[in-house]
């Protein structure tokens, strides 16, 4: 088990009062808080090493470049990738997916080709493919979920066929918490000659990741959901793939030789990192990876599996409350969406916030899934390494208050 109290000491932001109560931060699927080590790395870089990378001869430029490239190697190690050069830094998961849609999709999809995705995808893994379909005449095929909120794997097997060029699937749902069997999906897709993109925005922060055993071709995730700064995303591609793709953006840093009419491209991954990158935040992301490495991702997972189970049980003790997605914590992550009977999610969030508890209300960038669940929106509590059982208790107490307020309205109107 994690020493949560010690971990909490590393997070300055957690030690504050919100609306007169200790902050309970349960919106980690949106973004996580940052430990002192990450904040310090950011400050240290600007105070001692700031320079533009890959170009300068001077000492600062060398130091900045070494640190930046050092984080690329750390990322590769963190996700079990063989080569740092298969890791591209982007702004976020969304940009990573758009990079694939543009640089791979435009060159490889023809009218009638199929992109297979699921209705539990985040909009960031839907819209780029809709845009690609418009540009190329490709067709989107959606896989449904089961009543338990898991991927309808038999339907997926039936949909994948000779026209399938890409299966693009979320590893862990940001709404349902469902962990999808990415390894099995990759086998199915590869048997049909299709590539597989895994949206790892919610899985990379919470699970041990080994891209080689997952068997996928692309893996995309964001730093800010795993203790790192905003503005840094990662795209990993299977060795050889990036080399076969044309650049996404053109400009400085991504060229080899520039001539008036035509130019040649830098080696991967620099071919995909046009312009001055987010050097400081990438370097601070390295501190986040060190921090998670120090804890161990298996320990992160164990902690969250326990806490998710505790949260699901506690939430379901509220009469009529529905938890969306799998109830078995072994089959899901710590993003727990729920509906409180008779109280709209926004009203729930407002009331809960008054108790210092930060949860999310809304469609969670998953409108297709909301429609499938037949809810306008949900509330979502999402956990991380610094969360404790007593914080779940604070949430549940606030939820009881929400139901009391709206039940009061019920009983009063009943006797009108």
């Amino acid at each position, binding site marked *: 088990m994690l020493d949560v109290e010690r971990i909490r000491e590393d997070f300055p932001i957690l030690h504050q009062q919100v609306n007169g109560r200790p902050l309970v931060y349960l919106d980690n699927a949106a973004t996580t808080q940052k430990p002192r080590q990450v904040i310090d790395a950011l400050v240290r870089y600007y105070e001692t090493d700031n320079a533009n990378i890959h170009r300068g001869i001077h000492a600062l430029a060398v130091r900045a470049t070494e640190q930046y490239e050092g984080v690329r190697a750390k990322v590769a190690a963190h996700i079990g990738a063989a080569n740092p050069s298969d890791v591209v830094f982007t702004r976020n998961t969304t940009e990573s997916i758009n990079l694939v849609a543009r640089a791979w999709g435009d060159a490889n999809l023809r009218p009638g080709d199929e992109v297979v995705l699921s209705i539990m995808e985040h909009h960031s893994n839907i819209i780029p493919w809709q845009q690609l379909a418009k540009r190329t005449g490709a067709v989107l095929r959606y896989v449904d979920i089961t009543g338990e909120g898991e991927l309808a794997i038999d339907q997926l097997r039936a949909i994948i066929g000779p026209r399938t060029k890409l299966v693009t699937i979320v590893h862990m749902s940001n709404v349902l918490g469902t962990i999808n069997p990415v390894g099995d999906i990759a086998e199915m897709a590869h048997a049909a000659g299709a590539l597989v993109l895994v949206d790892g925005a919610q899985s990379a922060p919470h699970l041990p990741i080994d891209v080689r055993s997952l068997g996928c071709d692309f893996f995309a995730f964001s730093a800010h959901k795993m203790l790192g700064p905003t503005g840094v995303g990662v795209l990993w591609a299977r060795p050889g793939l990036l080399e076969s793709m044309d650049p996404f953006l053109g400009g400085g840093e991504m060229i080899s030789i520039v001539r008036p009419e035509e130019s040649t491209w830098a080696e991967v991954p620099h071919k995909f990192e046009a312009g001055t990158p987010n050097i400081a935040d990438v370097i601070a992301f390295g501190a986040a990876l060190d921090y998670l490495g120090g804890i161990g991702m298996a320990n992160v997972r164990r902690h969250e599996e326990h806490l998710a189970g505790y949260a699901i049980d506690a939430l379901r003790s509220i009469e009529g409350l529905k938890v969306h997605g799998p109830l078995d914590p072994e089959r899901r992550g710590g993003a727990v969406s729920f509906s409180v009977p008779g109280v709209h999610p*926004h009203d729930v969030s407002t009331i809960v916030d008054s108790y210092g508890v930060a949860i999310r209300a809304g469609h969670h960038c998953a409108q297709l899934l909301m429609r499938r669940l037949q809810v*306008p929106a949900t509330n979502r509590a999402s956990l991380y390494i610094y969360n404790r059982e007593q914080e779940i208790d604070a949430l549940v107490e606030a939820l009881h208050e929400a139901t009391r307020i709206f039940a009061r309205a019920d009983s009063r109107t009943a006797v009108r």
Partner: protein
Amino acid sequence: MPIPEPQFDDLYRELLLDHMRHPRNRGALENPTHRLDGVNPVCGDEVHIEVAVGDSEVRDIAFSGLGCSISQSSASMLTENVKGKKLQDIARLRDHFQAMLVDGADPAPDLGDLEAFQGVARFPVRVKCAMLPWKVLDEVIEGAAPAPQGDRQ
């Protein structure tokens, strides 16, 4: 020092909750002159309004939609408060409602029971919920009155 329990009586006034449970003028009109839709894309709240306007007056009005208690009770109370009123009076009402919510102004006398939304002003992220139905009605109001000056929430 004991932490005071949060108070919601101000935000969720009885009148609001009553309109949420028992919406007035909910449904559709047979012969509307305007069919208006509004969505708050951030939270997904929807308000649809049908109005029959004649002689610069709202003769009849109905709404439908889905969303939080604030947006739906606001729509219900809007219909009660504009039915039978001249468009220019409705425009003034809208401005006074907005001033109370956005600028924190004291409720103007013509607001009547719409004053029940005053507590929403203390919850800035919820102001847009209360304003949504009024923004939907804007299209009809603007047909009769010049657009108000200043920032719009």
